[in-house]
Structure formats: structure tokens, C-alpha cells
């Protein structure tokens, strides 16, 4: 087992749907630690880039290169979707599922999941069918399910897009806690405030390309591209 699967590099990666280029060509390297935030208007390609990195999309041309073998790479990363997907089981079984898939004994996996139920504050509700949970609780469940395998890289696709302030705060607490424990966070968001609170660096995307990459402070205080400047000012980006 290699020490780290990072950095991940994109070399001229392009994703197309039919004739339309969704993202690319992209050249990018993500390594180290901390939290990188993808920011940009709707249709910029943030979700597609996350899915490409995670292996849910394939590059039509160019390449995605991780620093380890394929099997190892995919077993050391997790993904949290914008709309939480819950299995038709109890909260505990939802959280335990990735461990069971990896061959951990059901009893041990459930015991570990019980700890996460307490960690995310679901209490007894987490022991019933997951469909009774609210949107915020389902997203916390999805976070716990993603974190239970102790991933080296965690992808988050606008995980708080449909949540209220209190739930957003809880999710951000889990993200920061994971980051502090060494998980590399790569996240898409529309929320400037959230980007300022969480990001170590910002990748600004527009029309499938990365227009700017900078530290959070530099990006918001002195954006270098016209597009980023407009976006931060709240102007319409066409």
C-alpha cells in the first residue's frame, strides 16, 4: 500500500456529452492537504469535474492520473452528492454499508456506525429507517457514510445546497473535522460565505475551464481574471 494516492493530475482532460464539451481541456494538479473549493456559476462544470476525478465520469480525451494503482485509488476516496442518496435501510445500516462492502464483519461495521450516529447527533432516530430523516439529517448520514472508511480524499458536491443554516453548520463542522484529521477535501459550492469559511484555495470555473486558482484571500480580495471579478461582484456571467 502506498502512503498517499495524491497528487491527482489532469492532463488535457475533456468530457463531452455528444458534441458538447462539458469540461476541458483541463490541466490541473491537486495534492497536499487542506480544502480546495470549486466555485463558479451554474453549468460551469464543477460537478462534472468532481465526478471525473472520482471516476464516475470518463475523460473522452486526455487523462486523469493518480499516484497509485486504480484499485487503491478508488478504495481511498469518498463522494457526497448534492441530493443525499439513502439506502432503504436504517441509518446505522446506511453508515455501516461501505465497511460491509469492504468485507468488515457486519457486527463490527454496525458498532463503528453506531459511533458515527452519535458523532453526527442523530441519536435514536438514526436507528430507524433512513427515509424518516429530514434533508439535513440525510445529508449528515451521507457524510458519516463517506467518512466511516477514513478516506484520504473526500469529494463533496454542494453538500449544503438545500439545507438551512443549522444543518449547514453541522455539515461544515464535519468537513472541518475531517480536514483536520488529514482528509483532503475537494468541494463544489455556490456559497461565497461557505467558500470563505472552509477553503484553503479556490478554483474558479467558468464554461468548463478553470479560469483562476488562488488562495482564498487572494481570490476574493484580488481576483486576477475578469470573469472571477464579475462573479464575485455578482454580475451576470454569460
Amino acid at each position, binding site marked *: 500500500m502506498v502512503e498517499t494516492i495524491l497528487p491527482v493530475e489532469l492532463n488535457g482532460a475533456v468530457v463531452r456529452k455528444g458534441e458538447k464539451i462539458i469540461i476541458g481541456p483541463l490541466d490541473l494538479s491537486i495534492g497536499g492537504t487542506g480544502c480546495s473549493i470549486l466555485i463558479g456559476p451554474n453549468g460551469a462544470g464543477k460537478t462534472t469535474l468532481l465526478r471525473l476525478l472520482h471516476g*464516475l465520469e470518463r475523460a473522452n480525451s486526455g487523462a486523469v492520473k493518480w499516484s497509485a494503482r486504480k484499485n487503491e485509488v*478508488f*478504495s481511498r476516496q469518498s463522494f457526497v452528492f448534492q441530493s443525499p*442518496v439513502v*439506502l*432503504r435501510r436504517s441509518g446505522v445500516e446506511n453508515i455501516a454499508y*461501505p465497511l460491509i462492502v469492504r468485507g468488515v464483519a457486519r457486527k463490527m461495521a454496525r458498532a463503528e456506525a453506531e459511533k458515527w450516529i452519535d458523532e453526527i447527533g442523530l441519536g435514536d432516530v438514526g436507528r430507524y*429507517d433512513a427515509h*424518516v430523516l429530514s434533508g439535513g439529517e440525510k445529508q449528515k448520514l451521507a457524510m458519516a457514510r463517506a467518512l466511516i472508511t477514513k478516506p484520504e480524499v473526500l469529494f463533496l458536491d454542494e453538500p449544503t445546497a438545500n439545507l438551512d443554516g443549522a444543518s449547514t453548520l453541522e455539515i461544515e463542522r464535519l468537513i472541518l473535522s475531517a480536514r483536520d484529521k488529514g482528509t483532503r477535501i475537494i468541494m463544489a459550492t455556490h456559497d461565497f460565505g461557505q467558500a470563505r469559511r472552509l477553503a484553503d484555495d479556490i478554483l474558479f470555473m467558468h464554461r468548463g475551464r478553470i479560469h483562476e486558482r488562488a488562495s482564498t484571500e487572494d481570490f476574493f480580495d484580488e481576483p486576477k481574471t475578469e470573469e472571477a471579478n464579475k462573479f464575485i461582484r455578482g454580475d451576470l456571467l454569460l
Partner: protein
Amino acid sequence: MNDLLAGLQSAIGLILHLDHDLVEISLRSLQVTISAVLISAAIGLPFGAWLSVTRFRYRRLAIALLNALMGLPPVVVGLFVYILLSRSGPFGVLDLLFTPTAMIIAQVIIVTPIIASISHQSMRDLWFQYHDLLISIKTTKWQRMKALLWDGRRGLLTATLTGFGRGIGEIGAIMIVGGNIDHLTRVLTTAIALEVGKGDFPLALGLGIVLISMAILINLTIHILSRTEREGTW
């Protein structure tokens, strides 16, 4: 109207007196259909799951064919099985023609596509919800199928019960391969056909009411035991 009342009276009489012949053919009906449905479910449910999670070149054609097989004419199935099992057929040496086993084989051929097709439709919708998550978690194909089979069990129960309904009321195929032999292959549906042929409508109607009651009772029992309506939408 008189025939209906007489049929109802006949049914009540047969049940209250626990008529020996009625009990025998009812149990045989259940034995044949339950065996066929269990075998069909063992084939059809995993096949439906496999079809949901697998992409291959002629998948759409396979699904269309499976749906078409739901409407297999039982008489043709009966004829096909008859030819296979007859003395001059490839499986004649097994000496299965005119036995309950032959009836089970015919019913398996009729019921399997029904269970596979309905379960596939149910699991396809579930797979649409689970697709990204299960791929993200790096599940194997077998683990994906297991997840669909377990989480979609309510839908699969409906598919299985639909297969049971089709099997218990089936007559064309089992008449041909079973032969409606008294104390050997006679079941409720073939007995009804026989009594109609003899002109004994009240008895035929009585047997029909017993058949319907049995089908409803089994469906209700399974639904109650599996708590289908008690645990929300799942």
C-alpha cells in the same frame, strides 16, 4: 343466479365437511404452484437484478423479449413440455409426463418471465436512485445485485405474488402435461374444467370459490407477515 347460490352453498359445504377430494386437490394445487413459484423466484429475481445493473449490447432487446415472454400462451408451453417429456422426446427417459413434476416444469416456464420482468422493472427504478452511490462505494456487481434484491424486497414480493396468481389459476399447460389424473395430477383448475364438462356447475363453481379464496388468503397472509403496509413506503 340459482347456479351462483348453489355454487356458494356447494363451496361452503365442501369446506365445512373438509371434503377429502377437495383437500387433496387443493393441497396438490398449492404444492405444484408454490414449488413452481419458488423455483421461478430463485431464477427470476436474480435475473431481474442482473438485468438492472448490467449494460450489454442487446440489453434493450433482451428486456423486450422478457416482457413479451410474460404473455406466453400456456397451451403452447404445455405442448412444448409435453413434446420434451414424451417417450419419444429428449427427456422421455425421465418418465416425468403426467406427473406433478411435469406440471411444475410447465409452470416454471410460464411464471419465471413474469417474476423476472416485474422484478426488473421494480429494481430498475431503484438502480436509477442507487447508481452513483453504489459505484462511488466501489461495490462489485454481485454486491449491487444484493443491495437491489434486499432493498427492493417489497417490490419483489409483489412480483412473486403476481407469479403465484398466474400459476394457481393456470390450466392450459398443466392439463396437457399433467393429464388431470384423479389422485395423481388433478388440481383445482383442472377439476373445475372437468366438472364444467360434466355439467355439474354448482360443484365447479364451488371449487372456483375455493380457488379464489385460497389465492386471496395466501396473498393476504404473505402481506401481513411481511408487514408490507406497516413500514411506510418501503
